């Protein structure tokens, strides 16, 4: 039985962060989720529930999203990665596995690079190397540049097929359900998030991300064309790429088929060998 989420809002230097932890009994390091732009933590719940019930999962609202406070000044990715590391200190986690989706994928790359000791394995879904990328169609990007879909859910339902692609093109109900979970906290937070990505790129240090990395890409992703994910896979040395037959939000729409892939990637031995240290005592001679 999966355990209920534990919500806590913590304060780090005047910045309030809303966090949710689904406790787990697994021996695996917990999974920290970096969510997409403007997306509050509730949006990943369907995905979390598709994962193994005993896996511990940590999600949070980035500053300016959902239940976290909106800072007065903009921020950049390295600062956010540091904030995430401090959040882990506060919640008392030493090492985690990290999954980053879309905008959160950029933050995940930054986190894995800036805090390698905190991040054991890395999963990147529907994301890119930032400014050095092959952009999606301009009409799509324009729709993305505005937080309107989060502020006015009906608008989100209308544009979902164009921006998310994949299953959203086929099933209008999906967009309605997705829109129902949206908790906006205003335009400013969204613009701060956009600003963080302005001019940011990981292309010059991707080869230094040494963590085992799983890269998941949708083949019908209007926002981030597949070629970007191929480039990530090419630059990150210990990575493997899986292409999924879906759009931008396959973590939500394809949760049932993507979750086992992710679990297989994260899995470790159930009872690994334990080797205890200590001075070698010579066994007494028989």
């Amino acid at each position, binding site marked *: 039985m999966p355990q209920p989420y534990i919500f806590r809002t913590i304060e780090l230097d005047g910045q309030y962060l809303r966090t949710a932890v689904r406790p787990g009994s697994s021996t695996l390091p917990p999974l920290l989720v970096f969510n997409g732009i403007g997306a509050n933590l509730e949006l990943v719940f369907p995905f979390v529930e598709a994962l193994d019930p005993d896996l511990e999962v940590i999600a949070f609202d980035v500053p300016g999203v959902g239940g976290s406070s909106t800072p007065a000044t903009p921020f950049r990715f390295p600062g956010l990665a540091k904030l995430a590391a401090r959040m882990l200190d506060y919640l008392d986690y030493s090492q985690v596995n990290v999954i980053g989706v879309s905008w959160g994928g950029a933050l995940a790359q930054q986190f894995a690079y800036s805090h390698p000791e905190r991040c054991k394995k890395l999963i990147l879904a529907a994301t890119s190397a930032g400014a050095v990328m092959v952009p999606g169609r301009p009409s799509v990007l324009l729709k993305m540049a505005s937080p309107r879909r989060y502020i006015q859910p009906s608008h989100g339902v209308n544009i979902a097929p164009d921006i998310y692609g994949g299953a959203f093109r086929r099933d209008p109900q999906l967009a309605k359900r997705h829109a129902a979970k949206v908790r906006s906290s205003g335009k400013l937070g969204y613009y701060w998030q956009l600003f963080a990505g302005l001019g940011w790129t990981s292309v010059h240090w991707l080869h230094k991300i*040494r*963590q*085992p990395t799983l890269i998941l890409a949708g083949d019908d992703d209007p926002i981030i064309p597949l070629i970007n994910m191929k480039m990530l896979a090419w630059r990150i*040395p*210990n990575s*493997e790429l899986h292409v999924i037959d879906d759009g931008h939000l396959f973590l939500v729409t394809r949760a049932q088929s993507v979750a086992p892939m992710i679990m*297989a990637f994260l*899995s*470790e*031995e*159930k*009872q*690994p*060998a*334990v*080797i*205890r*240290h*200590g001075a*070698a*005592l*010579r*066994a007494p*001679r*028989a």
Partner: protein
Amino acid sequence: MGNKSNNEDLGHKASEHILGPNPVVGVPARDLITTARMVMRQTIKQPVHSMRHISRLGMAVTQVMLGRSELGPSADDKRFVDPTWSQNPLYRRYMQTYLAWRKELNSWISSSDLSPQDVSRAQFVIALMTEAMSPTNTALNPAALKRFFETGGKSLMDGLTHLAKDIAHNGGMPSQVNMNAFEVGGNLATTKGSVIFRNEILELIQYKPLTEEVFERPVLVVPPQINKFYVFDLSPEKSLARYLVNNNMQTFVVSWRNPTKSHREWGLSTYIEALKEAIDVVLEVTGSKDLSMLGACSGGITTVSLLGHYAALKEKKVHSFTLLVSVLDTALKTQVALFADERSIEAARRMSYQSGVLEGRDMARIFAWMRPNDLIWNYWVNNYLLGNEPPVFDILFWNNDTTRLPAALHGEFLELFKNNPLTRPGALEVCGTPIDLKQVKTDCFIIAGLTDHITPWDACYSSAQLLGGKCEFVLSSSGHIQSILNPPGNPKARFFTGGEMTGDAKHWLETATKQSDSWWQYWRDWLHTRGGKRKAAPAVLGNDNHPALEPAPGTYVHER
């Protein structure tokens, strides 16, 4: 003609020295460079000492130039056998200058004020340099010049072709063997049998009995996780598997899968769980309630951990076991351990975890540099300077058919190597149970090789002391691989038995009896006395639950 025999010699010489399956530390190049720097600094740190050696070298070279020097290569140095080196005055002086330089460098470093460990590291680095700069490795090598004139220049063309091929296909290392001359399942690993069980990690091969009657108790062979299993079934005459089926044993061999990146997390526990499944299948198929096992090298470590695990569970599925060139007590250091300090072990672990596997090819390359004369420069001369094909030699083919090692297992082997937990009860825990080797009360047979420099025989001997059962220790006169491939009928083979197990290894050897021929026969008799009753050999391989899936050597062995 002369070429052919020369070629065979080359292969045999190399196979004496192939480092074979040994899951240890890589030597990061960084450490070599640090050591080289240390050597350079030493020249300045002890100027008087260094000057003294330089002047001694000057005097030695003067003697050489005047033709009064008696310097000559050591008896086991086969590089300078060509009479030109000793009879042509110019060549003689060239060789002697080289020998004098090498000798003086070594005496300078060994009498310096560095710590003993730094001295051995420095000696290693200096040897790398001096072996590389041997006059025999240059185009002036008289044998190469002769070949050049004999073949009208063709040898040079062939040599350059080989060099180009190796740069393209062999990471710039001289090929040790002609890889096209063999085929697994074609002319290697040909003993008849079937895969009767397969899981993610291993295939279980049952060999077809070749006798009317068999002993009730089967034997299961657990090969190392590095390199392929067919060292136990190499060629029809060099096959332990065939020898066993010829001698009334129901024989099963494990063939490990060659892991890829996605098997990063396979560790000792995973391998032991897989073995437990295989053991249950063997017992079910043969109807026996227990079996005999053989573990070789790292497969021996795995087998012993499994036995400790069984002892903790009070399982009695293993009646007797055999350890072949396997070191459980890593307190005694080998050459490989020279660079194995905390930092390099950690680095090796981290690197293999990140990439998911340790590449067998990289491992083989590191080992080749541990014995550069036998494994690199010999081939350099043969393939490039003389323009010969690399030898056709099955052992070398097997050694070059490398496998990867999953990161978790590699990390655990490194930990074992560093912390030596098998010597302390409860210090190692696998599959959730702590292990105490003294609780392993089964009879065991332990074989080591006298000239084995990978798993030195005294380390194997002290490993024998860790076990709780009745131990028979046997010492073969060969090296690491030759100890395994030891078919009867070799007039040169010797082995020692029956020494006193109460003292140290030296004392054991002094009190042991020397016997001629191969330990295989002696071991066969040991197995037979523990084989139970005789019964009619089974007509089919496998059973209804585990039918024969495909003929030996199976699928996993072909995964490159």
